[in-house]
């Protein structure tokens, strides 16, 4: 066991989960706002598809991602041709996997929070001359912020613990794509109980700190 074998998975986990949570936050809120305004048929079907990563096993999501972003996948081929990059077996691939798995937690809570704003306050803003963008940014979003933050914290927790989809897309390459949850699995498989124990302690400590900070941020102001 070297310090590197603890430190690398820890920093990789933080990097991947923070980036994935940021991406899930933006996508989740945007999709929630879109579905809320969606007046065409197929709204419920779209809602179900967007919630799918929450119910499907992570390995299934990982396989879907391989099909789409893999060497022969539609997006995978395009990325290779246009940018010369491949996401498979890279830490960026781990971010992709964690984003997809964490997305529904932001999306669902954002939908509930935006619905909870009701019609009256946005209508009041409209009569005061606000454009639809202003109604969303000045009224809906601030009022839904608490619910969205709560969902974002769940998304962060989910991203930090991501295992299945990450393994399928980014693999378990020590020093390259290995996150904490993957490193714990490898350590236990190798019978290295001491490393496993330190890793488990490290991730538990990080989670307690993150959740405590999050609880402070989410406290109601009005």
């Amino acid at each position, binding site marked *: 066991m070297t310090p590197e074998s603890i430190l690398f998975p820890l920093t990789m986990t933080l990097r991947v989960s923070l980036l994935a949570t940021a991406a899930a936050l933006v996508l989740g809120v945007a999709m929630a706002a879109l579905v809320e305004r969606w007046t065409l048929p197929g709204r419920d079907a779209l809602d179900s598809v967007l919630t799918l990563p929450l119910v499907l096993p992570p390995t299934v999501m990982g396989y879907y991602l391989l099909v789409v972003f893999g060497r022969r996948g539609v997006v995978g081929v395009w990325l290779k041709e246009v940018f010369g990059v491949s996401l498979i077996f890279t830490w960026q691939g781990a971010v992709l996997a964690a984003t997809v798995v964490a997305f529904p937690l932001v999306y669902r809570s954002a939908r509930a929070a935006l619905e909870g704003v009701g019609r*009256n*306050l946005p*209508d*009041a*803003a*409209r*009569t*005061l*001359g*606000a*454009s639809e*963008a*202003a109604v969303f*940014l*000045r*009224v809906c979003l*601030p*009022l839904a912020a608490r619910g969205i933050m709560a969902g974002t914290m769940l998304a962060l927790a989910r991203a930090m613990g991501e295992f299945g989809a990450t393994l399928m897309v980014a693999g378990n390459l020590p020093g390259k794509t290995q996150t904490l949850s993957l490193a714990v699995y490898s350590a236990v498989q190798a019978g290295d109980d001491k490393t496993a124990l330190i890793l488990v302690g490290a991730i538990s400590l990080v989670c307690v700190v993150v959740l405590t900070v999050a609880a402070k941020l989410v406290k109601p*102001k*009005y």
Partner: protein
Amino acid sequence: MQFEIEIEKRLDGGGRSFALQARFAAEARALVLFGPSGSGKSLTLTALAGLLTPDAGRICVGGRVLFDASARVNLPARQRGVGYLFQDYALFPHLSVRKNVAFGLSGILRRPGREETARVDELLARFGLENLAGSLPRDLSGGQKQRVALARALAPRPSLLLLDEPFSALDIPLRTRLRAELKSLLAGLAIPLVLVTHDPEEAELFGQAFVVYDHGKVTRCFGFDEAAKEGKRPAELLAEAFAD
């Protein structure tokens, strides 16, 4: 101000349906839409404000066409220049009194300039809200909320003020006091208004012309003169309409 309203709207939901077929023309500084709850008067008000799109018809106020289904005209609420006092006041709970009043004078990135700030100060002073400028709506009494809502609606200088049952959220002793207070505040503003109520006395206090609603239809439209011809006060005529 001239009102020409001719709208149809069908609402379905929860196994029930409601059909609004409102048609009237009136010339008044203060118009009252009167009728029992669920008669379509509030629906007409939201259509006037542009918050509800009628299925068919035409809305013309002060010579300005706000909605015309056949000509495909439907001015969005933000361009109608109409102030709206909501039944529950609809104050933004995350904003202070000052920011609520300034809402219509600022944008996503645009902060109120010197002129806008002066306008907000003037309104806060006129409505006796200077000491509450920093308070959040949850810390206000019913009467204070109403004054904030009114100041907020008036800040962008609307050409018409709509009031949706302005006293229904208050208990009765407060209602009587606030009625007099609102009446004197509005008297100093000289802004045309449309008020929705189911209280005949309230209607008479605020209105010049009265539109009576029943089950989604306008059954009568009259002014003080017509009431006088029948030897009655408008409130008496309205109370009779209610009894039918």
